[in-house]
């Protein structure tokens, strides 16, 4: 049988028509769509049984209770956990804290002058420096108040060195009060009974206590806020005093003058703050009637307030009768310490150390990106001094130190969280290790302890501390789930430790101690006028946050970028700058080039820029606070 061309065409046509009627081509199209959109390099999500574990956030002193969601053994998200009858949502940094272990800037090996070196090189250098330093040894603790901080003080007492902080353990306001009072009581804010909390430049709703607690609509106190910038705290405050930049001292002094009836100071304060005399007087009288307390605390990103501001705020608190009063600043007990730990080295401010005096400095850079320009540290170092920094990130002070040690990061180790300044009672809570620490990562306090001859692990020390809390049988254990347990009902210290390791938070319930107002600072205060072109920093995307924070800083402009300056359209017109232009800003300390952005919400005469390296280059430490004045602003 002959095959004609027609047969071939019929076969081909029939095959084509048959194929079209079969599912094959449609399946092929569907599969092609899937193949073309599911590449092998698209990350696969983790697999494993979903479980939840409680812990405590240790990224700031607020110590929010956290419920970690795990896939297998890996935390895949962190959410606020209800504790003590209150669920306080986490801040943006806390929500993505489980990413820090994978941060691209993670310090993974020991560095010497920015280059990898053997792990024992800093040990040898430190031992040699300590041996020849004759007591000129110090630890700079950038997250004071932890058990690790107490251990540093214990080791330094043995070595005869100094324990240094930038932000005092108690917070700036309470520290200034503590310096004027006597006795064992530790000053603390009694916010549960406060009528009005007057915040003077303090990020009360952003980074002072658990944001969920501060922003909770059912919180009892009313918030008044004085700040030059329209911050989140300013926006949510019941009353916002839009003072001129760097006029916090004048504002507090103005309220004191209004109470004292000092007309001359009141007039001067009104001129400096931009708040009228009548408004200051009315506010002062309202505060007197409202069971009020004033706070001026360190901003974790922008730095501490000026010392003169703290003096004026201490005086204001005394005038308001807030010291030792329910709803004001009361006395609380410390979280107990094991008796065998004493003596401890005294806490000193970094500012208080004489220049060029330190021969060995160990920095526990637990908060890389803290508002601490290297020049503030460098001035304290003697020629040839050895500096060792321990940090999980390469972005902090690791780059400037002689040696940098890779430290374990959040969720990798067992740490405790200090009592926050806004807590009226002592606390003890543990941040639990949920993931394996990175290879080569060390626990900074254990590393330093070995230099002082202490080989004990931090976990063992924490257990010792828990054992010291239990015998008092005071307070309550707030478990991660279930009912609150009184410590007196627990059978042993081991049971107390087990409850703490299960995510429980101990909270003291001892009676408030008597806090007697001592010799508080008195007027007159040194009042300074704002500069013609004042540079004011705002929060920046520090090094210690997840890469996901680009959502706020890069992929939207919710937060200002570090290389941007915001100014009022009138100020821009005066300086002949327009939106999007590049400007070169010169201060007495340095200069930088930034992009100009117009913002009608910025006060005229103010240059608002994100803190960060550009800001550090321009600012100087004046009266304990970082401050910068633009001498010249020209188009770049």
């Amino acid at each position, binding site marked *: 049988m002959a095959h004609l061309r027609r047969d071939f065409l019929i076969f081909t046509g029939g095959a084509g028509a048959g194929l079209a009627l079969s599912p094959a081509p449609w399946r092929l199209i569907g599969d092609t769509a899937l193949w073309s959109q599911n590449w092998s390099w698209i990350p696969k999500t983790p697999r494993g049984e979903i479980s939840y574990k409680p812990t405590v956030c240790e990224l700031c002193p607020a110590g929010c209770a956290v419920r970690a969601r795990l896939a297998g053994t890996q935390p895949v998200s962190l959410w606020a956990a209800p504790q003590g009858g209150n669920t306080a949502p986490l801040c943006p940094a806390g929500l993505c804290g489980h990413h820090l272990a*994978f941060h691209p800037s993670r310090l993974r090996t020991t560095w010497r002058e920015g280059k990898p070196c053997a792990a024992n090189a800093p040990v040898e250098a430190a031992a040699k420096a300590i041996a020849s330093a004759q007591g000129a040894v110090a630890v700079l603790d950038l997250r004071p108040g932890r058990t690790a901080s107490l251990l540093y003080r214990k080791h330094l007492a043995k070595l005869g060195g100094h324990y240094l902080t930038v932000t005092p353990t108690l917070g700036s306001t309470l520290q200034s009060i503590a310096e004027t009072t006597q006795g064992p009581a530790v000053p603390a804010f009694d916010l549960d009974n406060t009528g009005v909390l007057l915040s003077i430049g303090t990020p009360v709703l952003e980074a002072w206590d658990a944001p969920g607690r501060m922003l909770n609509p059912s919180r009892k106190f009313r918030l008044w806020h004085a700040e030059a910038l329209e911050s989140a705290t300013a926006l949510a405050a019941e009353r916002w005093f839009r003072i001129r930049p760097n006029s916090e001292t004048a504002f507090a002094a103005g309220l004191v003058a209004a109470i004292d009836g000092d007309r001359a100071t009141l007039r001067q304060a009104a001129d400096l703050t931009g708040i009228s005399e009548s408004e200051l007087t009315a506010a002062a009288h309202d505060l007197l009637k409202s069971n009020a307390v004033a706070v001026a605390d360190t901003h974790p990103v922008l730095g501490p307030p000026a010392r003169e501001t703290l003096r004026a705020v201490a005086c204001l608190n005394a005038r308001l009768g807030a010291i030792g009063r329910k709803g004001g600043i009361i006395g609380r007990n410390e979280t107990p310490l094991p008796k065998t730990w004493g003596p401890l080295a005294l806490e000193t401010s970094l500012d208080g150390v004489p220049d060029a005096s330190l021969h060995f400095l160990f920095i526990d850079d637990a908060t890389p990106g803290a508002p601490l320009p290297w020049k503030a540290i460098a001035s304290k170092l003697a020629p040839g001094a050895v500096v060792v920094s321990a940090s999980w990130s390469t972005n902090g002070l690791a780059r400037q130190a002689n040696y940098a040690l890779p430290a374990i990061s959040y969720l990798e180790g067992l740490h405790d969280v200090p009592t926050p300044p806004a807590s009226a009672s002592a606390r003890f809570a543990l941040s639990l290790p949920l993931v394996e620490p990175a290879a080569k990562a060390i626990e900074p306090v254990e590393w330093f302890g070995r230099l002082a001859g202490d080989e004990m692990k931090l976990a063992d020390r924490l257990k010792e501390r828990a054992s010291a809390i239990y015998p008092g049988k005071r307070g309550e254990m707030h478990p991660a789930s279930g009912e609150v347990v009184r410590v007196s009902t627990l059978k042993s210290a081991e049971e107390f430790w087990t409850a703490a390791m299960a995510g429980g938070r101990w909270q003291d319930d001892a009676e408030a101690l008597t806090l007697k107002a001592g010799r508080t600072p008195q007027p007159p205060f040194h009042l300074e006028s704002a500069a013609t072109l004042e540079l004011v920093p705002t929060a920046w995307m520090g090094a210690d946050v997840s890469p996901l924070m680009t959502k706020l800083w890069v992929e939207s402009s*919710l937060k200002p970028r570090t290389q941007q300056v915001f100014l009022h359209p009138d100020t821009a017109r005066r300086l002949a700058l327009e939106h999007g232009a590049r400007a070169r800003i010169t201060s007495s300390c340095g200069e930088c080039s930034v992009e100009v952005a117009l913002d009608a919400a910025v006060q005229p005469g103010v240059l608002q820029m994100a803190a960060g390296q550009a800001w550090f280059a321009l600012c100087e430490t004046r009266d304990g606070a970082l401050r910068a004045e633009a001498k010249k602003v020209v188009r770049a």
Partner: protein
Amino acid sequence: MIAHNSKSKNARYGMLVDIDRCTGCGACMIACAVENNVPPAAPTANERTGITPMRVVRYEHAGRTAFVPMMCQQCEEETPCVAVCPQNAVELDPATGIVGQIPQRCLGCRYCMAACPYHARYFNWADPAWPAGMEKALNPAVAPRMRGVVEKCNFCHGRWHEAKELAVANNETGPVAYTPACVEACPSRAITFGDLNDASSQVNELARQQGAFRLLDSIGTEPKVYYHSRRDWVQAAAGNSKETHRG
């Protein structure tokens, strides 16, 4: 379109954002990215090419500021993106009222982005990438989307699925209650979520109160996201997109 006295068989999930309570902290944006496996910015990303299914917009008016969380407004019948999609990659789920985006069907034409009056849709210009190791911390309930597709807020559909599975396992029928990530994360409790068809739900009650409004209400898209503000200038701006804003 808010139920007054009945509870429907189907849910119409909706949201109310109290602008007066929003402090612009950005927790909702981060929670959304963590929950939905949205990667950090690609090296070339900026405000226009970044992916922020939930974006807090800073709105200024005469020296005063308001923060407005913006996400897919979950339009009703006249949903512009559904109407223009040539691939049926956008669907309005009658069971939930959620406008869903199906990445496997999306061919990346971006008609939906052009059609969306709220600029609430984002295009994946690059393959999703996380710093080395961080992919281990992704949410197992949500698959990362590939390059070349559009994405947007879907009221955390993964969470709805989990809630639904749990309800089925417990032999429960009808709409399920769940909480999207942004609602759970908001420290100032500015966002309320629930079933608008349920007359007893909090979101239903809040959406009917004085000062509640919807964005660009006059164009008839019937969004299921409501806003609330007692400030006149914020309400006035709701229908006016010409004001300057940063965000």
